[in-house]
């Protein structure tokens, strides 16, 4: 389970995250939805303990990453916005490196990598250098790398960015299955349809604050819109829409 409570972070004059609280429960896919610059990436970095919050705290299965960073990181797999691979290594070597850094080794690790590659449909590419990989193939390797230690909690920051339709489909299946297997999955995106079909709960973030939190159905009802996309626009631009309503009246 991933818990964020009242996270706040300031960089100089910029308040990147003002007040972000949410919970990503086990066995569910939680979506974080927000426009660019809403503070999603900074919030995710706080979950992994790379950025120290000015106020509030994050907990991974009850562990504060500031207090016990290694223990917290062992329980969470994060696919950040920066997802560069080592292009001179093969797909397997890339994933193996991270597996070894998580304390795995030997035939057990290799079997686990094989299973991940089969699952992500990477098996035929396993022993090729990632230099010539397509964007979708690279993304899959990066995801395999992030979850190689089979963490209870998985955070994927815009994993469908720049992928073709087929890759997006297989990725969705992968995410859904992670949730079905009992993992807590946090899935950030700015593609509404994806969040609507994939997520059990949606957290909408705008300007560093959580503006809405609920099931897709609840959010649609609350915003008074039929589609989640309209709900998103209504919820993230609330002050403006208030003015518009007043003018109409």
């Amino acid at each position, binding site marked *: 389970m991933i818990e964020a409570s009242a996270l706040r972070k300031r960089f100089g004059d910029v308040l990147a995250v003002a007040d972000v609280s949410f919970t990503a429960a086990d066995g569910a896919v939680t979506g974080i939805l927000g426009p660019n610059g809403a503070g999603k990436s900074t919030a995710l*970095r706080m979950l*992994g303990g*790379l*950025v*120290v919050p000015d106020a509030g705290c994050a907990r991974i299965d009850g562990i504060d990453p500031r207090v016990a*960073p*290694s*223990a917290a*990181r*062992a329980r*969470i*797999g*994060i*696919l*950040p*916005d*920066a*997802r*560069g*691979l*080592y*292009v*001179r*290594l093969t797909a397997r*070597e890339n994933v193996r*490196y*991270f597996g*070894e*850094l*998580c*304390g795995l*080794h030997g035939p057990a690790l290799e079997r686990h990598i094989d299973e991940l590659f089969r699952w992500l449909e990477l098996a035929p590419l396993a022993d090729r250098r990632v230099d010539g990989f397509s964007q979708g193939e690279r993304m899959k390797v*990066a995801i395999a*790398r*992030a979850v190689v*230690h089979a963490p209870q909690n998985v955070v994927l920051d815009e994993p469908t960015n720049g992928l073709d339709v087929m890759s997006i489909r297989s990725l969705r299946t992968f995410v859904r299955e992670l949730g079905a297997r009992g993992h807590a999955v946090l899935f950030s995106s700015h593609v509404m349809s994806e969040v609507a079909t994939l997520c059990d709960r949606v957290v909408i973030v705008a300007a560093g604050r959580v503006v809405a939190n609920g099931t897709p159905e609840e959010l649609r009802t609350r915003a008074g819109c039929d589609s989640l996309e309209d709900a998103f626009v209504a919820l993230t631009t609330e002050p403006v829409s208030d003015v518009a309503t007043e003018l109409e009246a």
Partner: protein
Amino acid sequence: MSPLVIVARKELVDGCRDRRAVLSLLVFPLVGPVLVSTLLSTLVERATVERTVTLPVLGMAHAPALVAHLEAEGIVVVEGPSSPVDVVRSGASEAVLVVGADYPAALREGRRARLQLVVDESREGARPAQLKIRRALANYGRTVGALRLLSRGVSPELAEGIVTEEVDLATPEARGAVLLNFVPMFALMAAVFGGMHLASDLTAGERERGSLEPLLFTPVSRRALVLGKWLAALAFAASNVVLTLGCTAFAMSRVPLERFGMAARLSVGDVLLMLGVLLPLAMFTSALQLLVASFARTVKEAQVSLSLLTFAPMLPALFLSFEPLRPTPLVAMIPVLGQQSLLGGLLRGEVAEPSVYFACAASCIAFGALALLVTARLFASERVVYGR
């Protein structure tokens, strides 16, 4: 397996697959030794030529005393050709001396005996030989004049207003020694440059390619991460030093250095001692490079900072290659400068006190450990995500 070893092994595998890194690792160690041995060989050759000046003398029979004097001054005198002009013009001889038939009579009667030296002033290469011949001839003329004065009861010193003694420092020996000072320079550069490419690739490069953040999300300790990367950079720097020293030792064994009166060969002990001096330096430089490159956002940025950083200690080292500094413990404790003075001394056959070697190694290890500590601290802070 310890995380430190996992990181170091991965970085080494990655580095060895980087064609540019490997190429520079293989090419650099060859440059210095090839350059120095070529220059030294040329000098040796020239010095040898200067020593055996051959002078064809036409009419040798007229001047046996002169011939004896020339030979005493180290000039090989041979019977001259019938056409001295052709021989000199073609370059077969640097000069030809022509002794006229009236020479013995003039000498006997106390007149000025005329000699003719056929030279071609436009031939630069013949200058040293001509100079030697001219000096020998002038010396002989002075001796004859002095003897004439003595026979008349006059001191020869009266005829000489002044005496100038020339102290020529630009002997081939001195020039050779200067060149030899470049050898430690190249070995030093191997220690300084050997790990630089990797150091910037492992930090700024990792950040630039976007693989640093995923790496930092793994549970591996920051200290192990930094130490592993440092070990990989050090391995490159150290193998560069070993290769350079090996090539240098081999190149020097091919140059006839004993003609310069220098320790002709680098013994295995010398090479090991040099290695012992340079490895702590490589430890320090790769640690410092890792620290500096950790602040850069891109490899390019890192390389600019690193080349500036590298140039600073190179200046005194360059200066020292002409003006050797005596290795005192204080000098030895200054990275690069200390190694330079110790290695220079070693090549001149001077072995410093063990305490000096110890001071040299200890200061480098201490500075290196400090740099690693600061780097590990940086990697534990959130600054590492953003760079600078």
